[in-house]
């Protein structure tokens, strides 16, 4: 008699299921790789290249055509220009179609005509190349209509410029540039301060808020909804509101503080070191405490109340109950939230960008990406900062998977 054993190879059913699974996932995988994986690879590529904002417009020939009269004789004038001041164009030239009624005179050096097609070749030209070609013409017919016709057809230019994004020129300048000098350390300090205190602050404040609402009373739902406002509203709305509220000249908070006699003269909250960094961190705490509050509250409400009743019987005081019973139960969710918020705070860009624009010592790594790439127009340096961010994140995600995956539900 044979003993039934589980199959050792994959059956037809199982293979069919796997095929279905992959076909269901394929669209997602495709679109995600296109928009996330490819750009990620691209950023590594760009970080080793000296790319400026201006390089995004490829080098191209610019050709203008006009018909004009010169010392009693009609000429067609072509202005041929290299759009770049620095980069050369290989095989520059243009073609144009001639009209009936236009007869060309003596052709200048680089041009030739074939039937009704005019063609001028300049070969390889340097950056800043700028030349006028004048071809004398004789016109038969209405000069105005002819002028319109001649200028109406666009000459087609050709020639290829070297594209910095696709060539094989690599350099470490971008990295040297961002790691060089004190600025990098101040950026790193701002990032660390913002991330560490923003994360811890949001957790602690969220814990307090959760404790406040962890009992039933009338109006609890309203308060819970209210406390979520900062997180739900658009960043653009709340950031500008804070800027308005804390404005040194017309801000209500300064007016209030002066009236209360707390300060003598208005405080420039977002404009001076080190207050600006503290304020953006406070803003971060304000905006993201609702999230930790929501999670901690959910976990609190799933704790068995029997335990507290037993503790009450044993005469435990409220603080003892919190410290010895609630806190250990919340430790799991708190550590998960810490890790998640830590990563997300580290990644945060919009908040600081809208509040201070990275001024007054609040430039974090993410803001630095924008600053390098768009304010200084050095895309390569911006990409190099992005690579630094990405490398740091890889380290974080290692911890993330090591600890988070064990936590059920996240």
């Amino acid at each position, binding site marked *: 008699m044979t003993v039934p054993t589980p199959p050792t190879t994959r059956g037809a059913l199982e293979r069919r299921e*796997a095929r*279905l*699974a*992959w076909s269901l*996932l394929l*669209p*997602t995988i495709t*679109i*995600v790789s296109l*928009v*996330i994986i490819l*750009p*990620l690879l*691209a*950023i590594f590529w*760009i970080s080793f290249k000296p790319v400026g904002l201006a390089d995004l417009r490829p080098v191209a020939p610019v050709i203008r055509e006009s018909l004009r009269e010169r010392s009693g004789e009609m000429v067609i004038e072509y202005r041929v220009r290299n759009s770049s001041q620095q980069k050369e164009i290989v095989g520059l030239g243009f073609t144009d179609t001639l009209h009936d009624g236009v007869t060309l005179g003596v052709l200048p050096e680089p041009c030739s005509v074939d039937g009704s097609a005019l063609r001028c070749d300049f070969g390889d030209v340097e950056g800043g190349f700028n030349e006028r070609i004048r071809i004398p013409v004789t016109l038969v017919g209405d000069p105005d209509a002819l002028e319109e016709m001649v200028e109406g057809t666009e000459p087609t230019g050709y020639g290829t410029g070297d594209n910095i994004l696709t060539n094989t020129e690599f350099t470490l300048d971008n990295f040297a540039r961002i790691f060089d000098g004190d600025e990098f350390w101040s950026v790193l300090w701002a990032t660390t301060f913002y991330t560490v205190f923003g994360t811890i602050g949001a957790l602690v404040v969220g814990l*307090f808020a959760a404790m*406040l609402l962890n009992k039933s009373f009338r109006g609890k739902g309203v*308060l*819970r*909804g*209210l406390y979520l406002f900062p*997180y739900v*509203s*658009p*960043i*653009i*709305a709340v950031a*500008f*509101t*804070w800027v*308005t*509220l804390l404005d040194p000249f*017309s801000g*209500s908070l*300064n*007016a*209030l503080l002066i*009236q*209360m006699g707390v300060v003598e003269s208005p405080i420039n909250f977002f404009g001076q070191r080190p207050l600006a960094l503290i304020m953006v961190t406070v803003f971060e705490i304000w905006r993201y405490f609702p*999230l930790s509050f*929501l*999670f901690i509250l959910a976990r609190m409400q799933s704790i068995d109340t029997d335990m507290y009743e037993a503790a009450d019987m044993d005469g435990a005081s*409220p*603080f003892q109950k919190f410290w010895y019973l609630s806190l250990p139960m919340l430790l799991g969710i708190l550590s998960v939230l810490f890790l*998640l*918020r830590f990563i997300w705070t580290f990644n945060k860009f*919009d908040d600081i960008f*809208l509040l201070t624009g990275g001024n007054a010592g609040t430039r974090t790594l993410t803001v630095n990406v*924008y600053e390098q*790439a768009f304010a200084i127009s050095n895309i390569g340096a*911006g990409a190099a900062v*992005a690579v630094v*961010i*990405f490398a740091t994140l890889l380290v974080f*995600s290692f911890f*993330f*998977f090591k600890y*988070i*995956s064990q936590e059920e539900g996240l």
Partner: protein
Amino acid sequence: MRILRQGGVTGAVIGLFWAFVMAITVSVTLSFASGLGFRPGSLGCLVLGVAGGLALIYLRNARMVMGGFVLLCVVLMFTPLSPILFGEAVPIHWQLMAVVAFGVFFIWPLNVMLVEAHPGALSRHAFEDAVIRFLTGFGYIVFTAVVLIPFYVMVMTSLKSQQALLRNPLDFSIELSRGWDLFRSYSELFGQFNFGSYLWTSFYVSVLTVLITLLFSVPGAYAVARLRFQGRAAFSRSILLIYMVPMIVLALPIYIVFSMTGLRNTIPGLLMIYPVTTIPVALYMLQGYFRGLPGEVEEAGLMDGLSRLQVIWKITLPLSLPAMVSVSLYVFMIAWNEFLLAFMLLDDPSKFTLTRGVAMLNSSEIPRQHLMAGAVIATIPIMALFLGLERFMTKGLTAGSVKG
């Protein structure tokens, strides 16, 4: 510590702290409401706080204490012992209101805090209860103030005129005499700044983002949750990993590619990016939900001759309608609030989304109330959704909060 646990001392100390909390609260509230000058009087708070705490501990008759206390406050109103001090131009009825409000909101909660306290030594339990009640009351006030004040300022600023704001930044009273003119910044935003079109752009971009996201994430989530295939665990993990890639890192290459292909400044360009940022969240939330559904119903469907896709369409989707609502709301919120990509990719004012439109108002030439009116316009739809569907929204937030 032992001295602190004497009923009288506990009452006096908590009374003292609460008096300051209340005096500040009343002053700030009335200042914001009227624009007049109110501030807490330290000496008055000190004396009245201690007196109130002691009175509640030793007299034990809250109603009587409250009556007497309010009267005392009114009497002290004109002396340096007043709990709240007034600026020069504060009319008498405002002063009276401030002092009475202080009296009521001081004694009434304090009585609740001290309900278990009594003269003589307190048990540790009774003492900590009193402290916790004080901290709770304090917490409610601080949290509510901290959350509400910015939103209050946002709405009220949008209704003011530039001159009124500069004259007194604290005055948020509504000048009803202006009538419809109150909403001038709103009508100007819609009339001159094209906000109607921004609102519409944001709306349809968000709705399309939700639809595209669901289209991709429902099959994906089902596969991850229900089907067995090699690489399932790795796939789940890579979903989570994608959450962690910051947008600013991706924005740079996307900007470059879009500039070169002419997708920059176009709505289809945005619609290629937005769903991809939300698909991982949606996929993650949905697969968690699908996994929680009983598998037997689906198996019964399979036995009855339905194909897998029919099972998804006819059984799984109807069962997971609440999850779909949560996910849709959450994705809608992300797309509606999105700022960075819209800011980087859109330059042409005729194509702005709402957040990009509001960012445009942040210039020194445009008065502040227009910026705040823009902020209100951006906030109202999401708030309305949130308040109307709070249950789903909270669920969506908890499930999808990995997205920061």
